[in-house]
C-alpha cells in the first residue's frame, strides 16, 4: 500500500520497500550516500524481499530520496517496485547500513556478469593507482557475478573469490559505505587477489625473450602478435585467440579446433579497429559498449577485408569489445582484431576447468594465459544482431542471464514453474514471483558435458532463486533429452507436467516478452524454424498458428516434404533438394526440363535411386513442413553447402549472405518467386506451395541469372507469400467476416535471417498488422523454455492454482 508523500512538511517516519535486483549491486551504499546527503535519519538493510529503508525526515526530503533512487539507481540494479508506508519503530539519529541478519535468507536475484565500468577501466590504466594493470579489478558496479557464484547468499564466501582474503586496503574499501567497492564481493587487487599467468600447456619453460614484456598478460599479446594461438582463461570459460589478420594463424586454429566453417568471433581494442572491417551503426556501437558486452553481428563492409577463414561464406563479422580488465590489458597494444573463439574442441562446450583445458587445448594452443580463480559456471559470450530497427539477442548468455524478465499482466498469480526448454540451444526457465528467469544458453544436450552442465545449472538456479516448482513444462518431442529429464523428474517428484508443442512455445515466448496480457485476443503466430514435434506426431517447422497462451490452432503451414535419412537430410542439403524435386515435379520432368544444369549433373552423381526407395519405403524419411529445410534445399540448388553443411543453419546463413543490398533493391517485387497458397489434400490446410518457385529458380539457373539475384528473389518471394498467408488467414477481405486477428507474432530460428526478417516485418506492417517480434529473448530454440514456462503458467492459473494436478 502506497502512502502519498506530498502531505504536510512535518517530520515523519517512513518505511521504503525496494524490490527487484537490488542486492549485491551496491544498493545500500547508494541509499546511504543519498540519505546522508539529504540529512535523513534511519537505516537500510537487505532482507528476504529486497532492500528495506527506514527514514525519518520531512516528507519532501523523503520523496526526494525515493525520486533519486528511481532516477539513478546503481548501474547493475533493476528496481521492479518501490512501496512506502508509515514506519512504527524508533529511529536513532544519523543514517546507518545494517548488516544482513544472520540466518535471514536473502532473496537474492543474482546479477549477470557485467562488463567493467569506465571507472575501473581507467584505474587499471593509471600507473599511479594501486590497481594499475590488475586484470581482476572490479567494483559493485561491474565485474563477475553469475560466473563465480557457487551458492547463496551471494557473498565472497560462496563465490570462487573465497580463497582470496581481502588485504588491508581492499578490506577498508569493502567496509566503507562511501566507497565504490563497499561490499563488492569480488573486489581484489595485486596484493590479495587472483593472479594471471602465462604458461606453456606442455610445461616447458619460456625463453627470456618471451617474458621480457610488461607482464604476463602483455607477453601473451606478444605471442598473439607473432602469430601464435593462445588459450585465454576468460570470465565464463576458456577462449582461443589469434591474430585475425593472419590467414595462416586463423586456418591453423580452424584445423586444430576441428571446426570446419562456423564463424569465429572477434575482439578488438576499440571501435576504431572494428570500423576498419565492419560498418557500425550507433545502435550497434552502443551494444558493443554496453555492460552486457555481447558479440554483435556486423556487416563486413569496412574498408579493410579480414581473411575469409574468419567467417567462410558470410558477409557478417561477430565483434566484441574487451569487457574484462584482462581483455582490456591484453589488447592494449593491439591495433588489429583478434579471433576470440570459445576454447573447446569441435562442438563441445567451452572448457572451464584448468586441468581439462590443459589436456584438451594443448593440442590447439601451446600457450595459455590463465589464472588461479576458478570459473564456477560456464557462460558463453552472448550474440546480438541489429535487425528491423532493434537489437535482437540471438544467444543469451554472458551479460544477460540470469536477469529476470517480468511476466505480462494476468500472470501475477503464476505459481513456481520449471520449464526444461528445447534441445540444441538448450536453456531452461523458472517462474517465480511473476517473473521468469531464463538460464544462460547451454548448447546441444546430446553432448555429455553440456548435459552435465545443464543438470548442474538446474540445481544451481534452484538454489540461487530458492525455487520450488509445483509443475514442470517440457517439449512434446519424444527424444529431446530435456523433455525426457522433465518426464522422469515429474514422475519421481510427483509433479504435474505440461507438455508444450514446440512452435506454440516459440509463439508464447514472443507474446510474453512483448508483455501481451494473459487474456488478450489470439494472434497469428508465424513460427518458422527447422523442425519441432507436432501435436499430430508429424514434424512441423514452418507454421501459422492462431495462438494465445492457452491454446493454438494450426491455420497454415509449409509444404510437408520428406527428409530422406532424417537428421542426415539436414547435414546433407542435396537430400532435401532431391526430395523437393521428387515431391514437386518428379525426376523425369526435372531431367527433361533442366537436364542441362550443372546441378542436374551434381545430383545425378548422388545415390538418387536409393534415396527415392528410402522415401517410398518410409524408411527414416519423415515428412516435415519445415521452413529451414526449404532454405537448405534452395541453398543446395545454388551450390551452397550442396554436399554437407558444417554447422546448424550454415546453408541458410550463406544463402542469406548471398543477398546483397543491391540485389535486394535492384528490382521490385515483379520477379520475386511465386509461392502460391493452395490447400493441402486431406487436412485442407492452406500451405506455401514451392513448385512455381522451383521452376523459376531452375529457369534462372539456366538463364545464368546471378546468384545474388536468385537469392534475393527467393527471400522476397517467400516473404511475400508469408504476408499473403497472413492476410488470407485474417479473413479481412472476406465480406462480413470478422478479422480473426490484428496482431502477428514472428518467432522461430529462421527469423535470425536479417533479410527474411526485415522483408516479412516490413510487408506485414504495410498491411497494418501489429507485429510482435523478439528482442530480449532469442527467436531460436534458446527462447523455447520461456514460452513453455508461460504456457504452463497460463494452464495452472486457469486450473485455479497448483495443488491440484494438471492432466
Amino acid at each position, binding site marked *: 500500500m502506497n502512502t502519498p508523500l506530498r502531505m504536510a512538511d512535518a517530520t515523519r517516519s517512513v518505511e521504503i520497500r525496494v524490490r527487484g535486483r537490488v542486492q549485491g549491486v551496491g544498493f545500500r551504499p547508494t541509499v546511504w550516500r543519498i540519505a546522508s546527503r539529504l540529512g535523513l535519519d534511519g537505516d537500510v538493510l537487505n532482507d528476504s524481499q529486497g532492500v528495506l529503508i527506514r527514514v525519518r525526515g520531512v516528507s519532501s526530503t523523503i520523496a526526494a530520496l525515493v525520486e533519486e533512487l528511481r532516477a539513478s539507481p546503481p548501474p547493475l540494479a533493476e528496481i521492479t517496485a518501490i512501496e512506502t508506508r508509515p514506519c512504527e519503530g524508533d529511529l536513532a539519529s544519523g543514517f546507518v547500513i545494517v548488516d544482513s541478519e544472520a540466518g535471514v535468507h536473502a532473496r537474492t536475484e543474482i546479477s549477470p556478469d557485467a562488463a567493467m565500468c569506465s571507472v575501473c577501466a581507467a584505474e587499471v590504466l593509471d600507473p599511479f593507482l594501486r590497481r594499475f594493470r590488475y586484470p581482476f579489478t572490479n567494483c559493485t558496479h561491474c565485474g563477475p557475478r553469475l560466473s563465480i557464484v557457487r551458492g547463496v547468499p551471494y557473498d565472497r564466501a560462496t563465490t570462487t573469490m573465497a580463497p582470496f582474503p581481502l588485504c588491508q586496503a581492499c578490506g577498508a574499501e569493502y567496509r566503507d559505505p562511501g566507497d565504490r567497492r563497499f561490499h563488492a564481493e569480488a573486489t581484489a587487487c595485486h596484493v590479495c587477489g587472483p593472479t594471471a599467468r602465462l604458461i606453456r600447456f606442455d610445461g616447458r619453460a619460456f625463453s627470456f625473450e618471451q617474458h621480457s614484456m610488461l607482464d604476463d598478460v602483455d607477453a601473451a599479446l606478444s605471442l598473439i602478435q607473432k602469430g601464435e594461438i593462445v588459450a585465454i582463461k576468460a570470465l565464463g570459460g576458456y577462449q582461443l585467440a589469434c591474430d585475425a589478420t593472419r590467414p595462416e594463424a586463423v586456418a591453423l586454429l580452424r584445423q586444430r579446433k576441428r571446426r570446419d566453417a562456423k564463424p569465429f568471433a572477434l575482439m578488438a581494442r576499440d571501435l576504431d579497429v572494428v570500423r576498419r572491417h565492419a560498418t557500425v551503426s550507433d545502435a550497434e556501437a552502443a551494444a558493443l559498449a554496453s555492460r552486457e558486452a555481447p558479440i554483435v553481428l556486423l556487416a563486413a563492409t569496412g574498408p579493410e577485408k579480414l581473411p575469409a577463414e574468419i567467417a567462410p561464406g558470410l558477409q557478417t563479422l561477430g565483434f566484441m569489445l574487451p569487457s574484462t580488465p584482462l581483455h582490456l590489458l591484453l589488447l592494449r597494444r593491439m591495433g588489429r582484431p583478434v579471433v576470440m573463439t570459445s576454447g573447446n574442441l569441435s562442438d563441445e562446450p567451452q572448457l572451464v576447468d584448468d586441468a581439462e583445458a590443459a589436456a584438451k587445448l594443448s593440442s590447439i594452443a601451446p600457450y595459455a594465459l590463465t589464472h588461479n580463480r576458478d570459473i564456477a559456471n560456464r557462460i558463453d559470450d552472448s550474440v546480438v544482431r541489429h535487425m528491423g530497427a532493434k537489437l535482437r539477442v540471438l544467444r543469451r548468455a554472458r551479460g544477460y542471464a540470469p536477469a529476470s524478465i517480468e511476466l505480462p499482466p494476468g500472470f501475477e498469480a503464476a505459481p513456481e514453474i520449471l520449464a526444461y526448454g528445447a534441445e540444441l540451444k538448450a536453456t531452461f526457465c523458472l517462474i517465480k514471483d511473476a517473473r521468469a528467469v531464463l538460464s544462460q544458453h547451454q548448447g546441444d544436450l546430446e553432448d*555429455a558435458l553440456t548435459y552435465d552442465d545443464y543438470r548442474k545449472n538446474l540445481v544451481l538456479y534452484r538454489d540461487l532463486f530458492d525455487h520450488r516448482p509445483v509443475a514442470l513444462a517440457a517439449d512434446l518431442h519424444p527424444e529431446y533429452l530435456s523433455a525426457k529429464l522433465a518426464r522422469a523428474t515429474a514422475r519421481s517428484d510427483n509433479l504435474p507436467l505440461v507438455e508444450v508443442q514446440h512452435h506454440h512455445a516459440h509463439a508464447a515466448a514472443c507474446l510474453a516478452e512483448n508483455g501481451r496480457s494473459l487474456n488478450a485476443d489470439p494472434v497469428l503466430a508465424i513460427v518458422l524454424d527447422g523442425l519441432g514435434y507436432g501435436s499430430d506426431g508429424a514434424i512441423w517447422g514452418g507454421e501459422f498458428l492462431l495462438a494465445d497462451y492457452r491454446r493454438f490452432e494450426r491455420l497454415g503451414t509449409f509444404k510437408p516434404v520428406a527428409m530422406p535419412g*532424417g*537428421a542426415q537430410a539436414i547435414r546433407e542439403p542435396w537430400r532435401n533438394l532431391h526430395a523437393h524435386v521428387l515431391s514437386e515435379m518428379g525426376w523425369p520432368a526435372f531431367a527433361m526440363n533442366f537436364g542441362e544444369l550443372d546441378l542436374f549433373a551434381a545430383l545425378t552423381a548422388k545415390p538418387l535411386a536409393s534415396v527415392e526407395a528410402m522415401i517410398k519405403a518410409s524408411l527414416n524419411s519423415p515428412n516435415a513442413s519445415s521452413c529451414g529445410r526449404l532454405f537448405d534445399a534452395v541453398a543446395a540448388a545454388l551450390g551452397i553447402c550442396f554436399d554437407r553443411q558444417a554447422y546448424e543453419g550454415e546453408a541458410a546463413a550463406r544463402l542469406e549472405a548471398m543477398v546483397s543490398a543491391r540485389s535486394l533493391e535492384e528490382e521490385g517485387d515483379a520477379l520475386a518467386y511465386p509461392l502460391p497458397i493452395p490447400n493441402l489434400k486431406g487436412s485442407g490446410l492452406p500451405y506455401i506451395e514451392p513448385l512455381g518457385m522451383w521452376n523459376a529458380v531452375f529457369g534462372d539457373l539456366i538463364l545464368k541469372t546471378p546468384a545474388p539475384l536468385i537469392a534475393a528473389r527467393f527471400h522476397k518471394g517467400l516473404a511475400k507469400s508469408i504476408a499473403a498467408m497472413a492476410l488470407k488467414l485474417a479473413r479481412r477481405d472476406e465480406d462480413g467476416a470478422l478479422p480473426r486477428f490484428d496482431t502477428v507474432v514472428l518467432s522461430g530460428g529462421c527469423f535470425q535471417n536479417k533479410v527474411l526478417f526485415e522483408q516479412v516485418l516490413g510487408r506485414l506492417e504495410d498491411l497494418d498488422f501489429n507485429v510482435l517480434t523478439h528482442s530480449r529473448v532469442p527467436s531460436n530454440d534458446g527462447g523455447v523454455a520461456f514460452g513453455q514456462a508461460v504456457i504452463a503458467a497460463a494452464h495452472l492459473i486457469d486450473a485455479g492454482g497448483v495443488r491440484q494436478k494438471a492432466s
Partner: protein
Amino acid sequence: LSHGAGGRAMRQLIEGIFHKAFDNDWLRAGNDQSAFVVPSGRMVMTTDGYVVSPLFFPGGNIGTLAVNGTINDIAMAGAVPLYLSASFIIEEGFPLTDLEQIADSMGAASRDAGVPIITGDTKVVERGKADGVFISTAGVGMVPAGLDLRSDAARPRDAVVISGSIGDHGVAVMSKRDNLEFDTAIVSDSAALHRLVADMVAAGGAHIRLMRDPTRGGIAAMLNEIASHSKVGFHIDEEAIPLKPEVAAACEFLGLDPLNVANEGKLVAVVAPEAADAVLEAMRAHPLGLEAALIGYAVADDNCLVQMATSFGGARIVDWLSGEQLPRIC
C-alpha cells in the same frame, strides 16, 4: 496355401513339411506334447515371437532367426539350451516352397546348434490377418552350477565386452526392403551363441556379471536397460566398437545410428575387471568371437547415463529411443 477348405489334407501337408525338416524322435512319436527328463539344477525358459519383413534376407530368414534368437535368449543366462518349441501362424496364400525353405533352414539351424525342436503347432489365417508367416517359440535350458547372471549385477569399473561388429543384421534386413539395394554384401549376423557362451563361462565363471544379446534397439537400448537395472552408468568408446565399414556407410546413408540398429548374432557381456582379459581371450578363440572387443566400462552414475567418447574427442549421451529415430535438430 489356402485357409479353411482342404482342412485335414492341408494340415497334413504343412505338418509333413515341418516333421520332415525338424525330424527327431519326439516329433516322430506324434504326441501333442513331448516328454523329456529334467536334469537337476536351475532351469531357464524363454518365449519369443518373430515377425520380420522381409522374411528372407541376406544371411538368413525368419526361421533361422527364430531358432538362433531363442537359443540366444537362453544362452544369455549362461545356460545350456536343451529344447525348443515352435508354432507358426501362416497367412493364406503363402507359397509352400517358401514355407519349406523356412522349415528346412530352421531344421538345419537346430541340428547345427544341437538343440532340437520337440513340439510345435501351425495355424493358417485369412489373407491379411498375418504378414506371410509369424513364428512363436519357446525354449528351455540348464544353468551351470554357481552361475547367476542378472541384469542388475553390473558394478562400477566392470568391463563391457562385445563379441563382434554391430548393426549387421538390421542393415541386411533394411537393404532388402522395398528395392532399397545397397551396393554391398552385408549379411545378417544371425547365429546361435550358446557355444561361445559356454567358452566364456569356462573362462570367466562367476566373474561374468551378465550377458545380453543386443537385438531390437541395438546396443544403445541394451546398455541403457542394464544401466537402469544395475543403477550404474556406462562409458563406451566409439572407436573400440567393431563396425564394418560397409555397415557404417549404409547407416550413414540411411541416417541411422548403428548403436540403435539390431543384431542377431552378437552378445555383450559385463565382466568383473579382473576377468576381462580371460573372457576376451576365450571369445576371440571362438569363431563367433574373432572380433571380440572391450568397448568400455561401467561407472558410478546416479543418473544411469550411457556416454560414448566420440572420435572427435568429445562424449555424447547415448539414450534409448522412445520410438523411431527422430531428428532433434531444429
